[in-house]
Structure formats: structure tokens, C-alpha cells
């Protein structure tokens, strides 16, 4: 990466849109408007949007809304969704009980 990213690009003033109330992340109840505003406030990376708003951090871990969020952020920044780095996927693949993760005796837990 040789090009540095200016985080203070003064994008035009935040303009509310008619469908800003639309729910995007259903687990954490985050709307399109909240995501758009976060971009406007400097959260240019999907990882930052996640950390700032908790989108995709709830029960489904982003399985439903990841693509939608990517599209909204890309449009706001004027780039293609493919240019955005997606947030890191982290283990475990499925939720696992503490007793089970800590079990090293083998067998069913």
C-alpha cells in the first residue's frame, strides 16, 4: 500500500435520506441513517463501523447484514463495495459453551 488515506476529506454536509430509518442490522437494531452518519463522522472502514455501531456483532454475527452494510458504506464513500476490506471473521465458527471450550478431557460436554 503506497497511497495514504486522508481521513479528513470534507465530504459534503450530511444529507438525511428518505429511507434512513430502514433497519439494516436487525440483531443490534441499527438503521441505514446511523451507518451513513458514521461514515460521515470518519468511520471509513467496515471494521470501524462494526466497532462504532455494533453492526454485525449481535446474535447472527453479521451473516444477514454484512453485504448491505458494505454497499451503504461504499456508496457514501463513492467507491465500489469490492474495494472495502471486510471485517475479520473470528473463531469459534459456531457459539460454544464455556464448559465445552474448556473441556480437555474429551467426550461429550
Amino acid at each position, binding site marked *: *500500500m*503506497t*497511497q*495514504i*488515506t*486522508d*481521513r*479528513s476529506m470534507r465530504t459534503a454536509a450530511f444529507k438525511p435520506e428518505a429511507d434512513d430509518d430502514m433497519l439494516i442490522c436487525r440483531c443490534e437494531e441499527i438503521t441505514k441513517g446511523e451507518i451513513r452518519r458514521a461514515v460521515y*463522522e*470518519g*468511520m*471509513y*472502514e467496515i*471494521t*470501524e463501523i462494526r*466497532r*462504532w455501531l*455494533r453492526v454485525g456483532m*449481535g*446474535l447472527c*454475527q453479521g451473516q444477514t447484514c454484512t453485504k448491505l452494510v458494505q454497499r451503504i458504506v461504499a456508496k457514501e464513500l463513492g467507491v465500489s463495495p469490492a474495494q472495502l*476490506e471486510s471485517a*475479520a471473521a*473470528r*473463531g*469459534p465458527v459456531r*457459539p*460454544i*459453551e*464455556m*464448559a465445552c*471450550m*474448556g*473441556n*480437555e478431557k474429551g467426550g461429550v460436554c
Partner: protein
Amino acid sequence: MKTTSDVLIIGSGINGSAAAYYLAKSGVDVTVLEGASVIGGGGSSRNGGGVRQSGRDSRELPYVMWGIENLWPTLSEELDADTEYTQKGNLRLGKTQAHLDKLAQLAQSAGKVGLDVRMIDAMEAREINPYLSEEVAGASWCPTDGHANPLKTTLAFYRAARRLGARFYTNAIVERIEKVHGRARKVVLKNGMVFEADCIIVAAGYASRKIVNSVGIDVPMDLKVSETLVTETQPHMFDQMLGTAAADFYGHQTKDGSFVFGGSAGYDQFVRHDETTFSTPPASSLHGPCICRAVTGYFPSLEHAKIIRCWGGWTDLCADGVPVISPVDEVPGLILACAFTGHGFGSGPVVGLMLAQMARGEETVVDLSALRYDRFAAKDKKNKKAA
């Protein structure tokens, strides 16, 4: 693109971003250079969220206590964002007499610096937290400790600084500092770009070492991995921050109900690394299970709580366990803030405030002479001092 400013900050973690905020607030022209693509993506967005005084070295306590008294309680309003700061105390748990002795010793030395921390028996500990297992024999109790959401706090400092006109550049990997007429002046990026300022604050975690090496300064530190995990949302159980004398886990229940627990499997200083620290540390299969076993030993009722994510982060371990927060005499214009040794989140706001004060040439709110960069004497000299 503007490449000159009054102050340049290297690293956008909680320390760099907070310093940028307090500088911008006082009208100083400040630029932050972050090597990664993400703001604050190092330890500052990966930590356990502890905002605690208990268990700290007495050299750190004065400023950490200052921050908890003067900055944290109003930080959410100050930054116009919910940092989820919760000040409901810290229970440091012990299971054996040796644990209790260790806790009592820590409490005593903290008490000397004026911290309200005292030993309590198992019954009182269970009154504060009824979910503790029978194995808990006692605890130290510090009512003014707490926790906050590190992701939101770090990004809130960034957002607030940016609102006030601080400039941030990401993917801006700093390679070295260059002096002009004996003063720190230029910062050279990997891509060849050069930024200039009258004052340069290096707050890049472990990577600070290599950066200040370029002007002949060194800090004895090492890279250490630290791991954390988070559970699904649980019904509300308790609000305290938790730690243990055995240092086998620490953590708290967050505002949304999930538990964040950190710990170690014992090999954290021997993890493969490439020294850049932009990367995500390799998560070891030993950590998660080890943390789970520790937690359920103190909180049996959490055994069915489900883990949804595990992650690791780099910490900058100092040879003597406390950070370097200091101007550098040999290189006027250079200020160093690194080696936070795995507990620099809770102190972030006050450290940022004091870095801003140093950059403006003012006295810091708390005397930091114990944390100077040139304190590292040879062991024979140290022993003499102690004797």
C-alpha cells in the same frame, strides 16, 4: 495534502487519538499518522476495557487516579458518545492464603499512595457478587474502579478530534524520524512521503521502539500477545470489574449483556511475530480453553454461556512493567509514550491530556518523572539505589 503541522502524532491508538483530541481542543494544529488501514485497531480496540487503579504499580497510580477522578466520569459528555463507562468497583479474587497475602500487599502499597482499596472476606465478596464460587477465599475491593467500552472510547476520541480539525492519515506507515539542526523535525513514511512538525509524539506501541531507534533512543520492551473472548448476551448479573491474584482471568459484563474475559495460557511472550504489529496476532488454541476453565472456576454458573468470538492483541511489555511517558532530552521536540505493558487503556484519557500538555510545553497535571525514558539503570546501580 498538508504535510506540515505544529504537532505530529505517530499511532492512532487511545493514547495518540486522545492526545490529538486535547491538542485540537486547545487550538493546536495536529496531524496523526496511522500505519494500519483502521483507526485504533491495535491494543486499543482489542483490550478488556478495564479502567482500574487496583493492582497497579505505585509509579502509575497518581495519574491513573487523577484520570478516574477528573476525566472518566464526564468523558461520554465530553466526547459526545457513550463510552459505556461503569464505575462499580473492582473485585480482585483470591482462592488461597498465598493469593490473599499477595492481594493484601498490593492493597497496602496502593493505600500509601491514597487509593481506597481494602481486603474483604469471602462473605463480603459474595455480598458484592453473589455468583462467586465456594473456592473464593477473599478479595481486595476497590470501589472506584470500573470498565468502559474500548472500541467506542478509542473511536470517540478520533471522531471528536477530527470534528475539531485534527487531521488523520491511515495506511501511513512511519519508518523513521529525522533531525534538523538537532531537533526532531521530519517523519519519513515507508512510501517516501515526508511530514514535518515542531513536535513529534510517538505513540505506536511496540513499533515505537524501531521508530525512536532512528534518532538513537531505545526503550527495553518486548512484544507480548494477550487474548480475549466474548460470550453471547446474558441476563444482567453484575457490574464490577474482575481480576484475580492468580492472574488467570479478568473481565466484566458489558452494557449489552455479553461477558468479555481475558487471560493467558502462559506462552504470550513467545508468539511468532513479524514486528510490524499491524497484523492480527495468531490466536492460539490454548488461550480460549484456558480462560474458560479459569472463569468457570470462579463463576460456575457461567459454564453454559456461549463464546461467540475470540481475538488477540499485541501489548508492549516494558522491562520494569510501567510505561515510558516522557519528552526526550537528547532529541528536543520528541515525546515518547509507549511500553504500556498491557494496561494502557484505562489511563488513555489522562495520558492523552498530559501528552498534549507536554507538546504545548506546559507542566503535566501529575508529575511523571518516574516514567522517564532514561530511568533504565544497569542492575548493579539499581540494587545500590534500593539498598
